């Protein structure tokens, strides 16, 4: 099943005997009792709101009364004309770039080191995974202390060198960079765990065979282990991209998307411009754009990179 795929589950079959089943009555009762709760909740709170977002996005509406002021596609035009929207999109791109260029190699290197058994390996794995389970809000607050220009850790290091302490989160030049570092801090352990799980289920005999045939450790790594990890690497990339498109909680305590929108993500942009001001139509238009990006990405990625899984 792995991820996100309506295509992945179709076509599987329940054993033939079930088709006949002992009695239709019995099956009917289960279907009537067991399916509706999940389907109803899902339809009501997940599927319908997406449809409604598409509908509301055609109105200029503050959420009170009924939507009446139909303005067609104007909300989409307004979104696309907002500079902050493109900044947010760029920031999501930056997050993905850092995930691929820094986080993924880091996670993979650590996984290769920690998949072996040695004293302390398990403890280190747990330590590196721990940031992932902390709430984003708590993580964001911890780092707004770390970056604080008066009391923070970074400021203190700066001062020991006699320099004026910078307010990293308050400058448009450094705010996004600061957020990116927190993202790596929080999520590399998750990706490392993905790789460790994959490494532990690898067929060891393939690596041994390569070694017996005279491959050095690094050759075996490059030509046997890494290729065997490709499915997991693709999955890790998928999670990194989906995670970037959802990122919100972490940004709020750090910068709220500021200063001057320089560290907004798509979702914090949606929050700041749609939700917090109850601009339902405009916010829904942002939501629909985000939805289209997510779905298009998920399907394309599945089709191009994950065909075999």
């Amino acid at each position: 099943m792995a991820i996100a795929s309506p295509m992945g589950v179709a076509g599987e079959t329940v054993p033939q005997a079930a088709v006949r089943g002992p009695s239709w009555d019995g099956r009917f009762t289960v279907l009537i009792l067991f399916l509706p709760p999940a389907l109803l909740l899902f339809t009501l709170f997940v599927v319908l709101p997406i449809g409604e977002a598409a509908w509301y996005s055609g109105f200029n509406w503050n959420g009170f009364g009924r939507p009446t002021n139909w303005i067609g596609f104007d909300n989409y035009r307004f979104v696309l004309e907002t500079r902050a929207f493109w900044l947010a999109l760029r920031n999501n791109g930056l997050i993905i770039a850092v995930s691929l260029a820094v986080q993924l190699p880091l996670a993979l290197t650590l996984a290769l080191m920690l998949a072996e058994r040695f004293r302390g390996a398990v403890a280190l794995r747990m330590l590196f995974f721990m940031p992932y389970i902390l709430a984003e809000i708590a993580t964001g607050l911890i780092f707004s202390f770390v970056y604080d220009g008066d009391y923070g850790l970074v400021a203190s290091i700066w001062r020991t060198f006699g320099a004026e302490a910078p307010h990293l989160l308050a400058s448009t030049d450094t705010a996004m960079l600061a957020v990116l570092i927190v993202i790596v801090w929080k999520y590399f352990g998750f990706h490392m765990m993905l790789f460790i799980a994959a490494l532990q289920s690898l067929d060891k005999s393939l690596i041994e065979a390569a070694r017996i045939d005279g491959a050095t450790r690094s050759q075996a790594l490059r030509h046997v282990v890494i290729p065997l990890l490709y499915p997991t690497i693709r999955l890790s990339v998928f999670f990194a991209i989906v995670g970037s498109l959802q990122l919100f909680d972490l940004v709020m305590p750090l910068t709220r998307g500021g200063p001057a929108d320089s560290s907004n993500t798509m979702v914090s942009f949606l929050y700041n411009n749609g939700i917090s001001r109850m601009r339902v139509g405009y916010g829904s238009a942002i939501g629909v754009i985000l939805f289209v990006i997510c779905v298009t990405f998920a399907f394309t990625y599945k089709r191009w990179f994950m065909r075999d899984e």
Partner: protein
Amino acid sequence: MSSAEVTRAPFDPAVLFKTAFLAVVAIFVLVPLLATLLGGFKSLGELRVNPFGWPTHWEWQNYADILFSARYWQLLRNSLIISTLTVILTLITASMAAFTFAHVKFYGSSMLLSYLTLGLLFPAATAVLPLFIKVRDLGLLDTYFGVALPQVAFSLAMSVLLLRRFFRDIPHELLEAALVDGCSYIKFFRYVTLPLSRPILATVGTITFVNSWNAYLLPLVMLNTDALYPWPLGIMIYQGEYSSEWHLILAFITLTILPTIILFLLAQKHIVAGLTAGAVKG
């Protein structure tokens, strides 16, 4: 690279590099956490001159004030209520649906399952405005259920997939035999499937709990009354009030992430398995 060949030599540069690398990453992870914990024991003045080190004078009062405040316990209580509601409702609805998808053949089964997995494709945030209006129209705004029900709906897709995969491993012949002997599907589900599935129920329950416990956006949108706020909302307000009294804020952060860390240490197997579950092919 000849050094790679000499793996167990006492002064192997590769081992040295590895140890140094792991140490650097461990420090990178640990320092912010330890500084937060210790910062809560300092006075504001000391924090300014000594943010890294051991407190010279331990200020237990920072922690004590929070622990003896009604506010802290109310935040935890609200979070606990919302998370528990979410976990219970998710486990009930998802396991019933997963059982049907795993063991009952009916027309449209795979289509309905695909429909449910659409939930994995996009974040809750995309439709949060219409969701807000729906919750308001249902009269659930500013209630625990107004947060819990949408959370259940969004956790269903992953939960059903994980549970169904596990349920399918329970031999279908067992179910057939039971049915022939006059057992009903529902009794089989209650007395065979569920007891056999404790590990996966624990895993799904733990991930759902952690996600709900940490959630910020949905409660932020759905709740207006301070008295109902879960801790992520409460701590943001606390930080707003005490803006630069970092010693108090750090103590508050420590006390709110402590439950998560304890849960993690107790249930790390389930948490790691559950959160990386997407990686294992099914």
